[in-house]
């Protein structure tokens, strides 16, 4: 999952979906990514957005971006995209 810019896919877990009617998970995920990367275009950064049953996203981040997002309000945990196995 590493690319040439030393970015790695991380899961940003944000818990339950807020019950506010005006909350749109995808826009929130994009805003967070824009904020931590300082880039207006997040093309290639957002891998997945979790928005139907809980809140979070998977994104390509550098180590410093990972630290930034981990300290943001609303983020429960940030962890590398691990590989599990069939048993």
């Amino acid at each position: 999952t590493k690319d040439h810019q030393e970015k790695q896919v991380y899961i940003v877990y944000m818990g339950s979906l807020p019950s506010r009617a005006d909350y749109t998970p995808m826009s929130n995920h994009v805003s967070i990514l824009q904020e931590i990367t300082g880039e207006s275009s997040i093309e290639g950064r957002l891998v997945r957005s979790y928005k139907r049953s809980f809140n979070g996203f998977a994104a390509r981040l550098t180590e410093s971006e990972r630290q930034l997002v981990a300290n943001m309000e609303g983020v429960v945990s940030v962890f590398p995209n691990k590989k599990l196995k069939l048993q």
Partner: protein
Amino acid sequence: TTASWDFMGLKEGNKTNRNLSVESDTIIGVFDGGIWPESESFSDKGFGPPPKKWKGICAGGNNFTCNNKLIGARHYAPGNATDSSGHGTHTASIAAGNAVAKTSFFGLGYGTVRGAVPASRIAAYKVCDGECKDDYILSAFDDAIADGVDIITISIGDINVYPFEKDPIAIGAFHAMSKGILTVNAAGNTGPYTASIASLAPWMLTVAASTTNRVFVNKVVLGDGKTLVGNSLNTFDLKGEKFPLVYGKSAASSASEVKCAEDCTPNCLDASLVKGNILVCNIFLPYVAYTTGAVACIFKDGSDWAQIEGIPVSGLQEDDFESLLSYIKSTNSPKAAVLKSETVFNQPAPKILSFSSRGPNIIAADILKPDVTAPGLEILAANSHKALPFYDNTHVKYTVESGTSMSCPHVAGVAAYVKTFHPKWSPSMIKSAIMTTAWSMNASETRYASTEFAYGAGHVDPIAATNPGLVYDSAKADYIAFLCGMNYNATTMKLISGEAVTCTEKSLPRNLNYPSMSTKLSRSYSSFSVTFSRTVTNVGTPNSTYKSKVVLNHGSKLNVKVSPSVLSMKSLNEKQSFTVTVSGSDLDSKLPSSANLIWSDGTHNVRSPIVVYAG
């Protein structure tokens, strides 16, 4: 499954009581390596349209079609939802496959393959394609919960342990539980090592693997007429013909390679000496047997499970292997016949399998894991047309596999079966019903890893699980209190639960209303006393009196006091609380001490293991 359901008492067809209309509305979400829709196990003959509650879709990708049995599919790995390894097809059919008669694997295991709930529907979520990434797994949970599945079976795991907030299965299962969906997870195949289990969250049902009374054996008939018995899965019929035996070290490629030739290590054998003969090896490496042109292979096998090989094989236990070597030494032209495997049904069972991952739980030390055990040895179930058992052009519709991957969907199927009788029960009630009615098991060995840390509450009993009498129910708020007790802060808990949480009154993790009771002492005290608080809900008879009984396991020096010792229930769904105080002294620091608490009203026996351990 031609034997496993019978072994557990879930008989075929009308011999089992079913609530068919509810079963038909039950949806099992299978998170795995995809599925083979064309399998007869997933034919929709006789099925009506999907249940009204179903909100999912068939998005299996190119050339992938669903039907009224396989009602939904999604894939997260590239490609489509088609199963290339056979694993997802196998697990789906164990939980919910149609009953398909006259099935076997080259004659082995002949019978009717079936899931626990053949009338139920399947939704397949392909999260693995060789590897199963966290982001795929979380996507599947995100979708399956919203799609409206009833039970999730996920035969996936890690060899490493992570805190709950960094474990995708624990995260997904928590949100599933919040929506009334029970997640059933394989314990893992990293046993028998202590604390090898990585499926640790209390809101999931974690399943170990054990044997049934059926096993496949195959005979080796020596030239002198003596017969040895291996426990291999040999589908090849050499018609009893005897071939010369060549012990690896006699076929060494050079004098310096004799030692490695004994183990049949690659490049240590002279293929010209092996070709056309039966290769005898201390260690079985299929590749070596194939490439040297051996007609069959006999090897020393200390394991308790067998896998399919592309040539005739027989794995002999050490004593029989030594007999074979003695025979080879005793004659100038040793010969033997390797016979096709046979099925025998007289095995003492269930026994926990060596590979099944063991507790204790190293994240939540006071939660006993695994929760239960189920059949995971040599299970015959559906296969994908793309999965080739012998890595040649041989296709099979049904195949034999072993693992906690196979035991997991057995329990998922049972959970679904229980739910068909009690559609309103919470995930924890279903879990409790399965755990407290499980067959009691005994440690097959004395080692630390062969205790409740191997089999949890015992072996699943599908029929008894539908009528447990009492259940230990836990709601989302109870799990939140449990997490507070594990020192998660209120801010984190609010995010996870979506509700304001006060973590002021810290609940001890051991007081989670769990169907088993376990605690880790911080050290080997000369004396100790710990109390568990529990609440049971009456789901049996309105007017009933339950008396407690404590049965100490062999060698246990625990003192167990239950207060009150009698519970008088006046109505259904009535809840009553009690405490269990366990005291003792000078516990064995190397083995857990255990007992069983049984609440009985004369009809129902509600059994909970109590496990205390140190170190």
